[in-house]
């Protein structure tokens, strides 16, 4: 673990190290400070950070408007559930397999639709996600258990320890969250990460630079879906029962909102977004009835007054700032 720690500190830099270490300690001791209820809330917070980060690759980095992310999440969860209940393969062994299954599924369905733009892509992804959900309900291949879903998924085991308490799952998910955030920070500043941004900014120009836009967009879907598959695996392990109703359009909207709320393409934005979507409502349980109403209004208001999100990526922030400065019109070229 030492080289990793080195890299970690190296990446964060000296002055910030203190804060990150404090944060890490807090994450480590949190379950000890509180009840199993809040530990579970923190578990779901972590789970939705994973889901948000996974969609952030597709929506935030590559600019692909995916409103059917729950489908990939579902594929991960069902892969785990089916292979565990039918073949008895231990849940944690299925983690990479669920990721692969979701990635493969993404590879298959996104291939023909990548040329679609903006809202059209959004509609197609909604359509695919609905088809997935309906197929699960109709018990395709007799494997998905129909509307009942699948029951009796076994508890994961790690180093001979059976994971079942909220605290166990809390550590499992937050370990993954930290690992994935580290991976994302690195990816953002890599050749692939930039390629995603180029395609988002201007697909044609990216192609002219020799970037295979189709492949790059596909990779965004594949990587993002793989991560959603991981989240699905954890979810199945935690719940021990999954059903199609957990993977409907609404779930996609929630994940999408996490990305938009925080700021597209921003890792801290995803964390803030997940906090807003998962933890905030738990703190304010009283407004249950009007919760969705407020949420809808917030979405509109966000677009009107803070379209870059609550915690935009440095890039988006710079873009907003430079918009305020006067700048020469790019249209001059045609005049």
């Amino acid at each position, binding site marked *: 673990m030492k080289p990793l720690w080195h890299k970690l500190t190296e990446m*964060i830099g000296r*002055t*910030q190290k203190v*804060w*990150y270490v*404090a*944060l890490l300690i*807090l*994450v480590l001791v*949190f379950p000890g*400070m*509180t*009840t*199993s*209820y*809040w*530990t*579970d*809330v*923190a578990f*779901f917070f972590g789970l939705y950070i994973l889901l948000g980060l996974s969609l952030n690759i597709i929506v935030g980095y590559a600019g692909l408007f995916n409103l059917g992310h729950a489908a990939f999440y579902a594929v991960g969860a069902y892969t785990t559930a089916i292979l565990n209940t039918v073949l008895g393969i231990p849940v944690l062994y299925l983690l990479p397999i669920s990721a692969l299954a979701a990635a493969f599924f993404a590879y298959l369905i996104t291939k023909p639709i990548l040329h679609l733009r903006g809202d059209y892509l959004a509609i197609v992804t909604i359509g695919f996600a609905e088809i997935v959900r309906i197929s699960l*309900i*109709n018990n395709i291949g007799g494997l998905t258990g*129909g*509307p*009942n*879903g699948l*029951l*009796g998924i076994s508890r994961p085991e790690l180093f001979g320890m059976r994971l*079942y*308490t*909220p605290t166990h799952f809390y550590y499992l998910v937050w370990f993954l969250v930290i690992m994935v955030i580290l991976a994302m920070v690195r990816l953002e500043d890599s050749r692939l990460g930039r390629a995603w941004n180029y395609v988002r900014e201007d697909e044609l120009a990216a192609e002219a630079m020799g970037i295979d836009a189709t492949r790059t967009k596909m990779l965004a879907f594949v990587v993002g879906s793989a991560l959603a598959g991981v989240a699905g695996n954890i979810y199945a392990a*935690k*719940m*021990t*029962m*999954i*059903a199609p*109703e*957990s993977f409907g359009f609404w779930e996609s909207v929630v994940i999408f909102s996490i990305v938009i709320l925080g700021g597209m393409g921003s890792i*801290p934005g995803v*964390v803030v977004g997940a*906090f807003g979507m998962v*933890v905030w409502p*738990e*703190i304010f*349980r009283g407004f*249950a*009835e009007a*919760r969705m109403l407020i949420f809808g209004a917030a979405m509109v208001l966000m677009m009107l007054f803070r379209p870059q999100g609550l*915690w935009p990526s440095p890039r988006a922030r710079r873009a907003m700032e430079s918009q305020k400065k006067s700048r020469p019109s790019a249209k001059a070229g045609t005049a």
Partner: protein
Amino acid sequence: MKKFALVMLVLVMAFAVTACGSKDDAADPIKIGVQGPISGQWALEGTGFVRAVTMLAEEINADGGINGREIQIIQGDDKGDPKEATLVAQRLVNQGVVAVVGAYNSTATEPASAIYNEAGVLHVTPSSTATGLTEKGYDQFFRTCFLDDRQGLFAAEFMTGTLGAKKIALIHDNTTYAKGLADWTKIYLEELGAEVVFFDAIVPGEREFGPTLTRLKNVNPDAIYFTGYFSEGGLLLKQARDMGITSTFVAGNANNNADFIEIAGIQNAKGAIITTEPIPTDIDYPEARKFIDDYQARYGEMPPSIWTLSAADAFRVVVEAIEKTQSTDKDKLANYLHNTMKDFPGITGPITFDEKGDRLGTVHRAYIVNEKGEFVPYSN
């Protein structure tokens, strides 16, 4: 990035401070949780749970409580969502409940049941009928609803026997409960030698059943058995009659609701039959009558569905166990419910549990809609 770390720290701190909730030990009142979808698509059902349980608890408290201790009801809204169900269950456990009535749908009950089992909390669901729930060997898990197979058997016997139907069409709505009931009914119908000439699902929330019914009309069944909910059941019945389908219309217990008749229209609903637990007005138990009267007096309307009554029974069973064992120890309570309690006078009929926690016996009856648009006991 430094700012990020700082803000996150503050957020997590705030979170932790909020989190330092109450860890309540055996204080004076006995805490009983009620969990269900108080908001969301099944809000009606969850609200029914809460109302029934709250009303009964207040009545008991007015009479001095159980064993001299007051009952405190703690409600948890799970929206019918398994994630929320987990959180609600954790919260109820943290708040020190002795027993929980609830979770409406099986997908919410499942993850909650594991938490209650690990925490040693008595758990009675009024409405989750998935068979697998009682297969996990939890000794403190019970249900006051019948498994789908009981009603399926009754419906199959009723349709083939009493109605003398040979060709039967089955329609469900692809929800856990309706699909289960349809599957069981099909099994028993085939055992009894009837022919299932049509078996298909409609989609909840759908309004146009023309395509399904046109196909159904072609096979001309003697009876149609619909296992879904009243909101679609009423429409299905109306559209079937509009299309000139005259087969006897039989519907499952989720159609035991006045809106079933209202949506179909009295003219169409007349002669339709439902299979259900005894409807309150038809039960001889004074408990049932009293419950219905009290409920109506207090909330100004009839209980929204059979599950409300089942929730009331779940609560009454819990109270009975606490009263009889003079204890709140889950082993004693569970043991009492498994082994000692026989034919407890429930609102939905006599209640006895088997070793798995499932309810024994069958109490289903058939009711027919009369000319005034009321359910009355079916008689030849």
